[in-house]
């Protein structure tokens, strides 16, 4: 199990990134029953300063003990300029999480520092370069302004995650369910992620019991181009997966692309076309992704 963990996981999608507090055993080991794409173990806000060490030890032993299968595990470390950030990395990366979620990603220099430190640990652990990924949390005004540099600062960055809770705090405004004031920041994060070809993750929705509200906000995020959402309760997984599920039309289109590609392969034709339009290789990857998601959700049968 340990050996396998040295190899970087290649996840196809990150629709649901579920936070779990790092110092609560009951929540830690119950998380494994759920079918989120990514677990984010929170050592930051969820853990009081006097418990930081205890939480780290607990999470280390948790990672040692359990097998996570296809699910990605990220550690939401403490701010890197706090007394805890580097300690978190030092103690937990040897347990081979898939990466870290970096709060207060504000400047290129800060990310580069983290990147170098991680590279050093990778050398010590004798794992491939870039084994550990970074999800950069964009959660401040300065972060939103610098997001392009941030995204370019390390090849480890696999996703940009917008965090409206801290962002509104930084701006000194209230977080409401409508929050038009967030649109600029959301779009800035999104466009950068798209331009860099990495994942765009939308912010948490904090009212666990308002499923309708969650669905609406997720639909909005999807319509903008976000492909995933950070979650604070397992109850939010299924509604979010349903929103990100491909539509019937999308599935049918994907199926037609795949069969066109297969036909072309059988007849050894290099150029693939559908309805008189050229089908390129990104379109084929996208179609495969759509069908995998559809199969996972039981929208199409395994062999379709």
């Amino acid at each position, binding site marked *: 199990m340990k050996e396998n963990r040295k190899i970087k996981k290649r996840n196809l999608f990150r629709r649901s990134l579920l936070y779990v507090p790092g110092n609560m*055993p009951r929540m830690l080991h119950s998380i494994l029953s759920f079918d989120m794409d990514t677990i984010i173990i929170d050592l930051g806000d969820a853990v009081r300063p006097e418990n930081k*060490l*205890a939480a780290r*030890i*607990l999470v280390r*032993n948790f990672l040692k*003990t359990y097998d996570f299968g296809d699910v990605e595990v990220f550690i939401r470390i403490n701010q890197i300029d706090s007394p*805890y950030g580097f*300690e978190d990395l030092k103690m937990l990366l040897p347990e081979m999480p898939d990466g870290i979620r970096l709060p207060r990603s504000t400047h290129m220099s800060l990310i580069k520092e983290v990147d170098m430190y991680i590279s050093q640990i990778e050398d010590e652990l004798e794992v491939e370069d870039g084994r550990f990924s970074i999800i950069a949390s964009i959660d401040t005004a300065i972060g939103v302004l610098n997001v392009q540099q941030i995204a370019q600062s390390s090849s480890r960055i696999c996703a940009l995650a917008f965090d409206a809770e801290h962002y509104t705090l930084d701006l000194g405004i209230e977080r409401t369910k409508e929050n038009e004031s967030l649109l600029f920041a959301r779009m800035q994060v999104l466009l950068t992620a798209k331009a860099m070809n990495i994942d765009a993750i939308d912010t948490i929705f904090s009212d666990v019991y308002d499923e309708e509200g969650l669905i609406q906000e997720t639909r909005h995020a999807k319509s903008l181009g976000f492909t995933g959402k950070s979650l604070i309760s397992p109850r939010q997984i299924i509604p979010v997966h349903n929103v990100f599920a491909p539509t019937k039309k999308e599935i049918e289109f994907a199926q037609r692309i795949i069969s066109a590609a297969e036909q072309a392969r059988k007849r050894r034709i290099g150029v693939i076309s559908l309805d008189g339009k050229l089908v390129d290789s990104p379109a084929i990857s996208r179609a495969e992704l759509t069908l995998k998601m559809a199969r996972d959700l039981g929208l199409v049968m395994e062999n379709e």
Partner: protein
Amino acid sequence: MEIINTGQAGTVESSDCIITVSPSENGMEINIESTVKLQFGDHIRDLIIDFFNKKGIVNVSLFINDRGALDYVILSRLESAVLQASGYKEGL
């Protein structure tokens, strides 16, 4: 490793435990209170003694109030409490 003061870690929430270790003069004194004492009391004691042996801790007094914590949790709380009790301070 030596226990020089009192260290404590954990909570009394379900699936967790709270462990207190302090110095002792007469070897190991282990006190177990657990919601699953009948089924796992002996096992928990073995787990703790084994940990102390590995760390070379001989003189120690320990109290655990266990709410059905799994092994990895007990070992984590134990390690945290012992670190504290042996004078470790974070950031030093």
